[in-house]
């Protein structure tokens, strides 16, 4: 925690506070790229009003927040009042930056500790990562997506904090806390449930590395992680069930909403357009296909990245951001912020230019096409869908490129950088 980090936090804070006074907020809160039905603050206020009137907010189709989050937000709203409700959002954002800063440091420690010990030019030194923690915090605080999410009062600000904390504890190897926060993230948005797989692998790796009496076999370690995780995972819904006066209605409005995708309001994801075009008859089948698709990548990645559970953990974040049913810019920001941790693989990446340009183009063009479609009426849904497709493609390119770069570097670390062909010329290693 250096002075520079505090300066960055202070700057981030002042940027947010000053922008909250402008008219940007309202505009942001109406952007479908920033706000989804499950993160909209407007819907939360509606839900609070319903609860005040003694109506269950889960009866209708308005509220998709979990009961615990709902109670937390109600508390916030009554503490801060309507005028200063932005304060918890901003402070949560800054807190996330602090957590990410810590996560980055933990990640670096892990990477340094777990690299092959033999001397090679690829071996990482502490000084390679001198500024990384700071860059991560800056990349989070000054990412326009983060600022937009915070200004729009998206409740995913809190989900992101949970997720970042889960990452922090996982990387630090704190089993019970990590599983608790992964379970909390899953309780909130369901998809982070798959993060438990890399987490379990990480704990197993750690357990097998410890010497002496603490050494456990992987099976025991996996069992232990699974056991704690299931307890946490079950505890949260049952607590909600208890708070909701023994009603399970919230399940339909939260996880049912995420899984069956009834709301087809456009967003930057791949679901809405496909299911507006879909005949009702095939809907169930394709819902299953799309949702299985989101979770499926865990299996091949778990096999391929067996030795690198932390990278596996990281690469799942963009997968969730692309394939979840109601994605927004809020899902992008965590993995973008942590990107600098993998700076040592950058020189193996090949599409940085294309991907960066794609991200920028999408951010600028999406609101224009939205305007042409919804307000001017001169464009149509296909225009907007095209740009959301480009956005998803950009994320996938970034993800595959990083994965490739990571594996390619791993190859070089093991086999050395100067590979020669049989005839003595430098070999070129191609991924087919």
């Amino acid at each position, binding site marked *: 925690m250096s002075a520079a980090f505090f300066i960055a936090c202070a700057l981030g804070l002042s940027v947010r506070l000053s922008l909250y006074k402008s008219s940007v907020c309202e505009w942001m809160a109406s952007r479908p790229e920033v706000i989804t039905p499950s993160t909209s603050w407007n819907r939360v206020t509606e839900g609070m009003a319903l609860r005040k009137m003694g109506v269950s907010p889960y009866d209708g189709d308005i509220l998709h927040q979990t009961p615990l989050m709902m109670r937390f937000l109600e508390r916030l709203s009554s503490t801060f009042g309507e005028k200063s409700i932005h304060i918890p959002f901003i402070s949560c954002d800054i807190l996330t930056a602090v957590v990410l800063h810590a996560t980055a440091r933990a990640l670096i420690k892990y990477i340094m500790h777990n690299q092959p010990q033999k001397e090679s030019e690829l071996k990482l030194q502490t000084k390679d990562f001198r*500024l990384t923690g700071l860059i991560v915090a800056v990349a989070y605080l000054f990412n326009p997506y983060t600022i937009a999410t915070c200004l729009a009062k998206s409740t995913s600000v809190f989900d992101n904090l949970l997720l970042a904390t889960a990452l922090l504890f996982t990387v630090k190897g704190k089993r019970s806390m990590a599983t608790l926060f992964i379970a909390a993230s899953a309780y909130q948005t369901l998809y982070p449930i798959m993060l438990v797989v890399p987490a379990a692998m990480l704990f197993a790796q750690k357990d097998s590395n410890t010497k002496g009496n603490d050494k456990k076999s992987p099976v025991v370690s996996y069992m232990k992680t699974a056991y704690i995780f299931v307890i946490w995972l079950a505890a949260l819904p049952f607590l909600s069930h208890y708070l909701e006066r023994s009603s399970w209605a919230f399940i339909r409005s939260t996880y049912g909403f995420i899984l069956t995708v009834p709301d087809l309001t456009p967003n930057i994801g791949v679901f809405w357009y496909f299911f507006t075009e879909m005949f009702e008859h095939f809907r169930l089948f394709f819902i299953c296909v799309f949702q299985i698709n989101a979770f499926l990548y865990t299996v091949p990645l778990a096999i391929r990245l067996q030795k690198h559970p932390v990278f596996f953990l990281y690469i799942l974040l963009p997968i969730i951001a692309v394939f979840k049913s109601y994605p927004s810019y809020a899902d992008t920001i965590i993995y973008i912020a942590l990107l600098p941790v993998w700076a040592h693989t950058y020189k193996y990446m090949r599409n940085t230019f294309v991907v960066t340009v794609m991200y920028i183009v999408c951010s600028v*063009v999406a609101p224009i096409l939205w305007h042409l479609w919804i307000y001017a009426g001169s464009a149509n849904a296909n225009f907007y869908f095209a740009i959301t497709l480009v956005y998803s493609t950009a994320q996938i390119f970034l993800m595959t490129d990083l994965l490739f770069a990571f594996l390619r570097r791993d190859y070089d670390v093991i086999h050395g950088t100067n590979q020669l062909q049989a005839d003595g010329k430098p070999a070129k290693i191609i991924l087919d």
Partner: protein
Amino acid sequence: MGLLTDEKQRERFITVISKYGNKLCVLCYMAGLAWFLALAYKPFNAGTYFSENALLPGLVEPEFRHGNDADRYFNDLKTEVKKDKRKMPVEWLADRFRDNGLDVYIQNYTFKYPMGIAGNIALPGQNVYGIVRAPRAGSTEALVISAPYRRPGSGLSNTNGGIALMLAVAKYARRHSYWAKDIIMIVTDNEGVGMQAWLSAYHNTRTTENISPGELHGRSGSIQAAINLEIPGADVSYVDVKVQGLNGQLPNLDLINTVVRLCRRENVPVTIERQQDYYDPESTDGYLHSLKTMLRMMWHQAPGTPTGNHGLFHRYHIEAVTLQGIKTKGRSSNYGFFTLGRVTEGILRSLNNLLERFHQSFFFYLMPATDRYISIGLYMPPFGLLAAAALIKAVSLWISSTIKAAGQEAKDDCKAKNDSKVKDDSKAKDENGDEENESADDDTKPDEDGDTDRRESSDKIKGPEKQISTGLSSLLPVLLMCNIFGVAAYFSPDMFLQTSKALNLEPTEGLLMGLTALFLSAILFPRVLRKNAEKMGDRSGADPEMLKCVALVLQGLVLFSIALMNISLAFFLTLVYTPITLIVWPTNSRLSFYLQAFLLLLISPLFLVIAASLLQHSLFDKYSDPVTLLHQTWQTAQHGVLIAVIDNDLYGNWLFSLATLGVLPLWLMFWALLWTYPQQAVS
């Protein structure tokens, strides 16, 4: 995907781009331009057709027989106007509507000019409108006929003919029972402001603080389409269809087709941009004629100012056109109210058949003739080529700078081995092969703006070897400054107008002078940055290659974004920007430097305004005297800027925002590029 994953294809691509990059740029630009202009040639565009089956234009027997009534209204209106020249004859109009059995309402609204122009006084205005209620429908849908009222001496041609025609059509419409939609007939005051006030009140929205629309006492259903009549007298030589709306938005092509078809049926000559269709469009003359029509249309679309009151309807998702009657001297065949009434009747009855909103036909098109159109699918590829020149250059710059970074890295490695030290710095490269991160001392604290300078200073401390800074982070100060100037220019008019009031200057003069002053200070900033860098005794500052790459990418982004909304503006900007921005490069040669500076100044936003008004005057008005021409140009430029600022507030015209927040920062980036250090020959 091959390009992104296959190494071999990728290398081929890189060699092609780095070898033929410049030639490709020139080729793209030339081909794009030639292709775009060729689109006006008949075989390269398409004939219009009716997409919407429900319109059924001209299928019914015309029943309008109220030409004489229109003549009478016209003469009455003339005498009425003479009674009080300063006021719109609201009472008289309301009475005539009432006589014909319409529901009549009067809207009272007030407006004031933004930013205290004209002394912050709220000016009153009145609109009169009558509604022909559809006898067998529940007022859920409506059509609009509007006509602006122009006081004598307003400088614009009067529209009394249109108002008289509207009254006659009201009389006709009330007597028939086949209307499925209400017809709203409205006479507006104060040109666009009146129309905007009525539309705001009708839809219950406020677009600006400066127009208070008041209450409407009568409403109808959702408006499907609108026809705006600008007919000066009792007879016209031909009818001109004006289509360009706010921010370059166009009405659905089907509406234009309907109007053109019905004019043809009544044998009224119909034009677009006052250009009649050429009898032989495939001849050379015919092509030039079509090209002129297309370019005129684009010229009027580019600024995004509506060419008539119809343009304000577009933002409410209402398709609308203006029919302007034009009388030329010495033409024998003129068309009176009888014929024009039948045209209007035909349009109304056709629109009356609509089952749903216009959605079938095109919204993005250009018209080289009244019956030909160039759709977005046809004009986007040549425009893409035109703009792609810059992107190709950007890619080739990126490639060359990454190759150079790799080369430098290899050199570092060599050196490290020679020193027999393991120097692993170069591995933890920033995305862009950024060198500073490693070479900077421990105490470097990069925050948002000041980091580069400090890093550079630490570079200096570190070694005698002076480095030309590379990488994206070296651009931060330049990018930040460019955007600060853009934002300042966007928010400055308020201040300039206040100042000019205090200094007793005309708002037109004060505004332009203020913006010029801002512009001049913006021009100086790269010089300051350079001096600053020199003081450091370092060849530091922005990396020219990276700066140009980023600037070209942003240029592509800005131009493509504009093209989505207003192809004409994007086309003209691309036309002048691409060739000049492609050649800008820092140089040691004085002559080349001044030449580039001159060229860049030519395309600066401020100069473009002057160039546009010069073109406007030399193309559309024939001034023989160059002094008057220049004087007029200066006047128009001054007014143009003021009007852009006013329109931005009153109607939401994006031209001023685009120029200050989009084009100005972009231009400044190229200007800053010219001031960076010329690179040493890279071995």
